[in-house]
């Protein structure tokens, strides 16, 4: 079971959260100009790395707020959690997530 730190409530069991897939996927800036291929990319294609992955989680059984996590998909280590208005932390930097 994963232990995930909600930026507002602190560390809680995985079962309190809802998973939301890849983070930082912005809605297209000029939707009218997208062709089918670009729409397919936006709707259906997501990264699937083996290693650090920025993803969205929601504290469903807590404060019910969405936040982002940087998690290693090979080791399941949660490297950092951060609010939606914060930039993706650099896992290599010594104080990952320290700018909170």
């Amino acid at each position, binding site marked *: 079971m994963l232990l995930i730190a909600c930026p507002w409530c602190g560390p809680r069991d995985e079962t309190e959260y809802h998973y939301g897939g890849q983070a930082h996927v912005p809605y297209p800036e000029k939707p009218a100009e997208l062709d*089918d291929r670009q729409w397919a990319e936006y*709707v259906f294609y997501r990264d*699937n790395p*083996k290693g650090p992955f920025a993803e969205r989680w929601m504290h469903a059984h807590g404060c019910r707020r969405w936040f982002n996590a940087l998690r290693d998909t*090979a080791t399941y280590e949660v490297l950092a959690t951060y609010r939606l208005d914060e930039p993706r932390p650099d896992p290599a930097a010594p104080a990952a997530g320290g700018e909170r």
Partner: protein
Amino acid sequence: MTAEPLPEHPDFLWRTPEPRSSYDVVIVGAGGHGLATAYYLAKNHGITNVAVLEKGWLAGGNMARNTTIIRSNYLLDESAGIYEHALKLWERLPEELDYDFLFSQRGVLNLAHTLQDVREGVRRANANRLNGVDAEWLEPDEVAKVCPILNVSPHTRYPVLGGTFQPRAGIAKHDHVAWALARRADEMGVDLIQGCEVTGFLKDGDRVVGVETNLGRIHAGRVGLAAAGHSSVLAERAGVRLPVQSHPLQALVSELHEPVHPTVVMSNHVHVYVSQAHKGELVMGAGVDTYNGYGQRGSFHVIEHQMAAAVELFPVFARAHVLRTWGGIVDVTPDASPIIGATPVENLYVNCGWGTGGFKATPAAGWTLAHTIATGEPHPLNAPFALERFTTGALIDEHGAAAVAH
């Protein structure tokens, strides 16, 4: 049902050749799908200058980790087509491969616990029959006749309101299936190369001309990918992005018991599926972990949930001990259907996205991928499962239709 003895493991099944510098076709991944592809390339198309490259050991991936359920009771026409083709192939493969891999057509029950489940089940049984798939709707008392140890009392939290039954469905001994396919492919000249990881691709412009491996470069006229949970990681190295997400899926077995469980039971609503292996273990599976992962282990709360469901449905299991749990990594697509066909890179073909249910499709996945690689064109059965469907929007949306929740 009686406990059947396991077939003897033959001492010698395939050669261990050094890779040659070039092949007509290279298949990446020696799981069931890769091996079936090589077998049908040789048998149906006479293409035997083929290598199957496996980074670990033959059939050590999801082929060795699945709960071996085989059925074809899918709702949508495209899915019924390919899974029923697979079931027909399963029915003749033991004889064709001259290997008794204990394909046991003991039937599968898909239980209904809500009014919505009932409507979906009745509709699916009707759709199945229109597609030539054997299926029937059973009322709770008929369910109890098929599987007497099931608790169909109305006093459980989610009472059994009925179920669909496919009598021709069943289970098979998965690793023996792989060995049977490997032996025949090898006999026909296919090189099965273990400990050979594909780390990159050789390209000439937009065309693939071979692969880079830890054992050196191997040139190839055509390359087929059958890497299950690692499909997207591999395809990315060829510059192809796939709409798949990799998730951990786990299963468990109990200690051995006398034969008590005569069929396969699946429940989507309370989410557990159970059969009894030939030796006597109860084999149980449940849903995927929601998050992406490659760690080959799953979350404990998923096991707790599936055990609670199993004990309520099968009170007789309450004191059974868990012997072993394990996980595999499955690649899931947005419409819960596989991708089999060409990629934007010429001569590179992909078979992926089978998610939690590709074992049952093993022969048909091999049959159609071999056809596509041999002819450069899709077979009518895999044409609807092309990568383009995510651009055209012609999805095969088996979510909620597939009789599983994922």
